[in-house]
């Protein structure tokens, strides 16, 4: 059983994001980068499956050298080896170009049974790459998975849908995106961290994947970021004091006329 886990390195969720005017990326100075929390669920699930059924877990990411820290975290948790896609050619990749590169790397790796990834990355929140990869590989996929049982040639999963849960049986190979609740990711142990250093990590370029110049990075993208801006600052709340009989009509009026919410 070979499981491929797609991961992304993202700013720590406690980061206070800043945007410099006119720039199309956030200010990355001094921010802590971590393994995307939803990808942690994916990695944990893959490792659990390996522990139960045997086989191997391969981690794959598109990212600069710095992203190796996130890779090592997954390796320290118990994944076996990793592939990192890097090179100038990938600069400016959008969701589509990222998915294309990952799909090519997965095809090159071959012989997989399951692909797992987070339901979205917590930085750009686009929640597209996983499903795109499945489409490009021509395999079935399910998103927002909160339970996963691997059977013989298929997986039975539970996924979140509006107002309830849905149970599906999906033929393998397939791709699943992990939702919170799928499992409780382990902390990488110290011996795990020490071992992670020695695990195999291959770095592949666009050329290694057979991607042409117009298929990767900005050139291979369907979208481009034009501008980033901070959400408008929330105005300070208003405090009403007095007897309920006096202030309730006043608040109701303001909610209706100013805030226009009722």
């Amino acid at each position, binding site marked *: 059983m070979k499981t491929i886990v797609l991961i992304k390195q993202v700013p720590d969720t406690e980061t206070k994001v800043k945007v410099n005017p006119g720039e199309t990326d956030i200010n990355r100075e001094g921010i802590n980068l971590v393994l995307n929390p939803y990808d942690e669920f994916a990695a944990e699930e893959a490792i659990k499956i390996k522990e139960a059924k045997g086989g191997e877990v391969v981690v794959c990411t598109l990212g600069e050298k710095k992203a*190796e*820290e996130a890779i090592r975290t997954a390796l320290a948790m118990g994944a076996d080896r990793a592939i990192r896609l890097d090179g100038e050619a990938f600069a400016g990749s959008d969701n589509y170009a990222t998915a294309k590169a990952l799909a090519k790397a997965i095809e090159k790796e071959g012989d997989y049974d399951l692909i797992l990834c987070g339901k979205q990355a917590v930085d750009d929140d686009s929640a597209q790459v996983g499903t795109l990869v499945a489409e490009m590989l021509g395999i079935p996929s399910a998103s927002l998975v909160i339970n996963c049982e691997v059977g013989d040639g298929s997986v039975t999963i539970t996924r979140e849908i509006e107002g309830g849960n849905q149970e599906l049986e999906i033929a393998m190979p397939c791709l699943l995106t992990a939702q919170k609740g799928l499992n409780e990711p382990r*902390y990488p142990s*110290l011996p795990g*961290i*020490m071992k992670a250093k020695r695990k195999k990590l291959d770095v592949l370029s666009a050329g290694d994947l057979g991607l042409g110049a117009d298929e990767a990075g900005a050139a291979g993208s369907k979208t481009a970021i034009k501008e980033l801006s901070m959400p408008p600052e929330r105005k300070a709340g208003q405090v009403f004091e007095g007897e309920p009989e006096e202030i309730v009509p006043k608040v109701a009026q303001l909610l209706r006329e100013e805030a226009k919410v009722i």
Partner: protein
Amino acid sequence: MSFPLTEEQHMVQLMVREFARKEIEPVAARNDVESRFPTAIIDKMGGLGLMGMMVPAEYGGGGTTAVSYVLALQEIAYACAATAVTMSVNNLVCGPLLEYGTEEQKEKYLIPLASGETLGSFAITEPEAGSDAASVSTRAVLKGNKYIINGSKVFITNGGHAGTFIVIARLGDKPRHRGMSAFIVERGTPGFEIGPEEKKMGVRASSTVSLVFDDCAVPAENMLGGEGEGFKIAMTALDSGRIGISSQAIGIARAAFDEAIKYGSMRKQFGRALVRNQAIQWMIADAARDIEAAHLLALSAAMAKDRGESFTRQASISKLFSSEAAVRICYDALQIHGGYGYTKDFKVERLYRDARVTTIYEGTSEVQRIVIANNALK
């Protein structure tokens, strides 16, 4: 902080920070108030390799370096100083077992200690032998194939929950430090009584007890190291212990620093945030300076240890500086909080109490100065 860490050290730091934030921080205040020993947390820390960080993985430990140990202890102490001292002492106990233990002793005692299955405790201090550790009067006498131990120990960290104790006792007729040996004593050995928990001012979720040995018979093979090596073993363990307490103090200081900035930025007086006043900014600047310096001193001691050099002097300098800085920083952080800081509603109140012991245990500030001066004057 700006010191370049290796990828592995950074990963250890991030993992422990995450663990402390999620698993320890939420229960730290309650454990302090109720003096509740964090058994479940210590178990989890054992599973991660934190209870014997510098013990090789084949002996159940984390297989990492003293530098990583400094980073990890800071993160634990940032969330809970009591959990940090528990961890520090257990790591301290692992040291001499690794260095001086026979293969049988390692199998039997080190593996459970390093993996966190058993908690360890180190007993030197006695009612009449505190800073003057060479005046230990607990005595061991060889009788057949057993050592019979008599005497008492006080302020023994982890004692109430420990399964394995390293006990320093007098053996033979040689005076002072030359007549001391180390023994591994198991909890439950007949004649070994563990006293009630001390009611402490701070680190209240940690365990501190007295021990009484009344004709306590220990198998001869439980001597650790050779006869007369007890003082050397104790001092080596204390050197490592000082790096631990130094790191604990830094963690407490960092927490106080963050609390002070958080509160000082939110609290408005005279129409502006407290931190806009120069009097407050000077406190913050001094704290930042001391935390940075303390961190570098702790790393310097740890790196000397990792290189296999003597680090007695650096460990003392580091421990003296960090602990006294932590006390100052907590004092200022509480001052910034004003009257609110004097209530149990604010974390700084706990930090202030927790910091205080760091200038006392693992050698008082005065003992550190003796060590440093002796080193300078030799």
